[in-house]
C-alpha cells in the first residue's frame, strides 16, 4: 500500500512538469502581452522596450520558463506585472472564497446527488425515477452562466429572498453554491443510481434476501455501501473541476475568488497571475485524482488485495 502511494505521488512529478510547460507556453503563444496594458497614452515610444527589459519579457521563452519554474519550486510565485502585488498575496485573498464555494457545492452535490440517486434506484422505472432522472438530465445540460442568471431572477428579483451577488453575507453563497452544485448533483445521482441497480443484481444481495432481511435494509445497509465506491472516486475527481467550474459562476455573482482573478488577469495578460491561477487549478485536479485513487484503494477490498 505504501509502495503504491509512493509510486502514485512520484507519478505526479512528470505530470506537474508537463502541466507547467503547457500552461507557460499556451499563455505566451496567445497574441498580446501585458505591456500594452501598462503603456499610457502620452508616454514615449521608447517606453515599451524599457518595460520589456524591466519585466524580463525580452528574454527567450525557455529562459523565462526556467526562471519561473525555479522560482515556483522555491515557493515564489513572483509579482503581478499589471496588478503590482505579490502573486501569493492575490492568491491568498482569492483562494479561501473559492474553497468555501467549491467545498459547499461539493457537499451539496454529494448529499443531494446520493439522496436522489438512492430514491431513483429504489423506484427503478417508476415515476419518481423518471422524474429524478429527467430533472438530472436538465440540470447537467444547463450552462452554469445561464443557470446562475435564472436562479438570480427567481430567488433575488421575483421572490426577493436572497442577495443578487457579492460576498457580504452567507446568504450570498446560496445561489452560487446551487449553480455549481446542481451540475454535480446530476452526475452523482446518475452514478449512485446505476451502481445501486448494478449492485442489487449481485449474488450477495440474493443471499441477503434469502436470509430474510428487509429490502430497505438490504438496499441502504449493503447495496448503497457497494454503490458508493465509484461515487467517492467521482467526487474526489470533482474537487479539481469544481474550482475550475467556479470560474464563470464567480464572475456572474461578482464573488472574489480564483475565477474572477483568473479572468481579470487573463484579459490583462498578467502572466505571473494567470500562470499561478492555472497551476493552482491543475494541482487541485491532480490532487483530487490522487485522493480518488487512494480512497478507492482503501474502500475497495479487491483493489486493496491486488496492492497487498
Amino acid at each position, binding site marked *: 500500500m505504501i509502495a503504491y502511494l509512493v509510486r502514485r505521488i512520484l507519478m505526479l512529478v512528470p505530470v506537474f512538469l508537463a502541466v507547467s510547460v503547457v500552461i507557460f507556453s499556451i499563455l505566451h503563444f496567445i*497574441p498580446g502581452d501585458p505591456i500594452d496594458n*501598462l503603456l499610457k497614452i502620452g508616454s514615449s*515610444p521608447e517606453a515599451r522596450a524599457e518595460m520589456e527589459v524591466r519585466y524580463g519579457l525580452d528574454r527567450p521563452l525557455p529562459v523565462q520558463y526556467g526562471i519561473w519554474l525555479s522560482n515556483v519550486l522555491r515557493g515564489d510565485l513572483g509579482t503581478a506585472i499589471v496588478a*503590482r502585488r505579490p502573486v501569493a498575496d492575490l492568491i491568498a485573498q482569492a483562494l479561501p472564497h473559492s474553497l468555501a464555494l467549491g467545498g459547499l457545492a461539493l457537499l451539496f452535490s454529494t448529499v443531494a446527488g446520493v439522496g436522489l440517486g438512492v430514491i431513483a434506484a429504489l423506484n427503478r422505472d417508476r415515476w419518481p425515477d423518471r422524474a429524478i432522472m429527467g430533472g438530472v438530465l436538465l440540470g447537467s445540460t444547463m450552462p452554469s452562466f445561464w443557470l446562475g442568471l435564472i436562479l438570480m431572477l427567481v430567488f433575488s428579483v421575483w421572490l426577493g429572498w436572497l442577495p*443578487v451577488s457579492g460576498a457580504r453575507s452567507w446568504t450570498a453563497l446560496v445561489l452560487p453554491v446551487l449553480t455549481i452544485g446542481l451540475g454535480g448533483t446530476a452526475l452523482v445521482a446518475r452514478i449512485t443510481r446505476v451502481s445501486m441497480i448494478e449492485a442489487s443484481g449481485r449474488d450477495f444481495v440474493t443471499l441477503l434476501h434469502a436470509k430474510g432481511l428487509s429490502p430497505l435494509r438490504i438496499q441502504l445497509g449493503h447495496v448503497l455501501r457497494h454503490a458508493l465506491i465509484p461515487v467517492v472516486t467521482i467526487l474526489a475527481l470533482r474537487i479539481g473541476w469544481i474550482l475550475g467550474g467556479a470560474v464563470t459562476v464567480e464572475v456572474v455573482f*461578482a464573488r472574489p475568488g480564483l475565477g474572477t482573478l483568473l479572468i*481579470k488577469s487573463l484579459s490583462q495578460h498578467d502572466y505571473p497571475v494567470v500562470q499561478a491561477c492555472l497551476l493552482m487549478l491543475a494541482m487541485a485536479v491532480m490532487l483530487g485524482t490522487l485522493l480518488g485513487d487512494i480512497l478507492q484503494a482503501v474502500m475497495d477490498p479487491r483493489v486493496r488485495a491486488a496492492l497487498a
Partner: protein
Amino acid sequence: MTFPFRKTLLSASVSLAALMVAQAAAAQEAVFVMATNEVGAPTYNPIKATMLNTATGLIFDRLVSQAADLSYRPWLAESWEEAPDGMSWTFRLKQGVTYHNGEPFNAAAVKAWIELFKAAQGENAYMAEAIASVEVVDDHTVRFVMSRPEPNLLYNLSSTFMGVVEPKSYVALGDNYGVTEVYGTGAFRLDSFTIGQETILLRNEDYVWGPAEAANHGPAKVARLTFREIPEDSTAFLELKTGGVDFLLSVPADLIGEVEKEPNLAILTLPGQELWYMPINVTKAPFDDIRLREAAAKAINQDEILAAVFGGAGAVADTFLISALPESHVAESARIAYDPARANALLDEAGWTMGPDGVRLKDGQPLKVSLWTQSDSIFRRLTEVVQAQLKAVGIEAEITTFDSSMIRDQYKTGEQQLAVRSYNWDNADIVDWFFGGDRLGYPNVSMFNDPKAEELRTAAMTGAKNSDERVANFTAYHEYVLTQFPMAPIYQPLQVMAYNADRLAMPPAIDAPAFGAAAFLDLEVKE
C-alpha cells in the same frame, strides 16, 4: 414615583434620539457599482498603480481640477502662474488643508510628493518627467523648475495618477501603501478595501477645500460610500433593480432600455470622452491611394449610425478628437462628414467602376477589402452597419472578428485594411498616440507615417512653450492628419450612469468631465 417616571421618560427619549441618529446614519450611506472597466484595480497607490478607479479620486485631491469644458480650476492650488518661457510654474497652495492622518499639506509636502513620483520611475513617471526640481518658496508656495516647457502640465496634475499622496506615510508603509492604508487630503478616507470586491470610504469630517466646480466645498453630504466591483453588467443591473445598490457608474447601451422601464430608476448622462472611428491602413492597397481613403471615409453616414445603432444618444464625430477639446476646432474643410456623391465621384476618378452586383471593379478585380472588429456585441453591430454603408458606394468589406484582448497583436501584423475601433481619452495627444510614425501597427493601426505630419507632431508634442501655443500646434497637426484620411470619425457616446431616484438626489448640474470628486460632494441621500 416621579423619579422613576422621569427616568423612564428620559431613557425613552434618549433611545428615541439614538434610534433617530442611527436611522439618519443609515440614510447617509450609498452603495455604488464601479464602472466595469475599473473592476480589479489592485491598489490605491496613485504613484505606482497601472489602473485606478473612481474611489481613488475621492481619497486624493489634486492641485488642479478640470471642469466639464476641460478647462482647469483651482483645487489644492489656489492659483498658479507659468513663466513666459515655460521653464517654471509657481503654485500657491490652499491653507489649512490636512491629510487624513493629520499631517499638514504644504509646500514641503508637495516637494516630497513630486520627488517620490519621479523616483518611482514607473509607467506613470512621464507625467512629471519635465519637472526638473521643486523649490519651496514659502510654506504655501512651490515652484516647479522645468527641464523643458510642458504646456500639458496642468492636464497631468489634474489626473488621478497625480493625486497628492501624504509623503511620510507613503515612505513608511512601503508596498502596503494603497493596499492596507492610504492617506490623501480627499473628501473621503479609506475605511476598507478588498481587491476586486469592495471598497468602503468614510466622509472626511474636516474637509472644506472642495474643488471650485462643486457647489458644496465640504464636508460631503453622504457619510459612507460603498463601492462594489461587479464585472457582469447584467448582475449589476439586477442589483440596482432589487435595491442592493444605489448607483451604477457605467451602463452599457443595451441595458439603458431596461433601466428606463423601472419607475424608481433613472439614467444620468455626462458628455463622453470616448470616440468611435474607422482606421484606414494607408500602406495597404487600395487605400494607399488617398482618393480611396477619402471615399471610404465619406461613405460613413454618421447621423444614420447615431440614430440607428445608438438610439440618438451622444453625438456624431467629424474629427478625431472629442468635441470638448479646443484642438477639435479645425477648419470646416478638414471635417470628415458623410458625402456619398463625393465618395462615388472619387471612386470613379480612381478607375473603380460600378459592377453589376453593386461592387466596384477595376481591371476585372472587385473592390473587396477586409474590415476588422472585436468580439463585443456593440462593436459587431456597428461594424455591420459600417459594412452596409461601404457597400452603398460599391466597396465590399468582409468582416473579421477578433477577441478584444488579442486584437492589438493582430494590428501589429499591419495586415488590416479597415477596422472599427474606439478610444477613451480627453487630451489632444491621442493624435500623436494613434498616428505617430514610430508606433506603426499598434497603436498606429492606420500605419500612417507622413513626413509633414511628423514635423507638425514634434511641434505639437514638444515645441510649445505655453498652453495656447500647444492648442494651436495640436490643432494644426490634427487638421493635417484629417486631410490625409487615415481614418473616418464615427461617433461620440455619452457617459451613461444609472441610479435609484427614490434613494439619491443628484446635484442639479455636474460641471466636471466625469462623476468624480465634485459630484460626490454635492450628492445627497434622500431617505
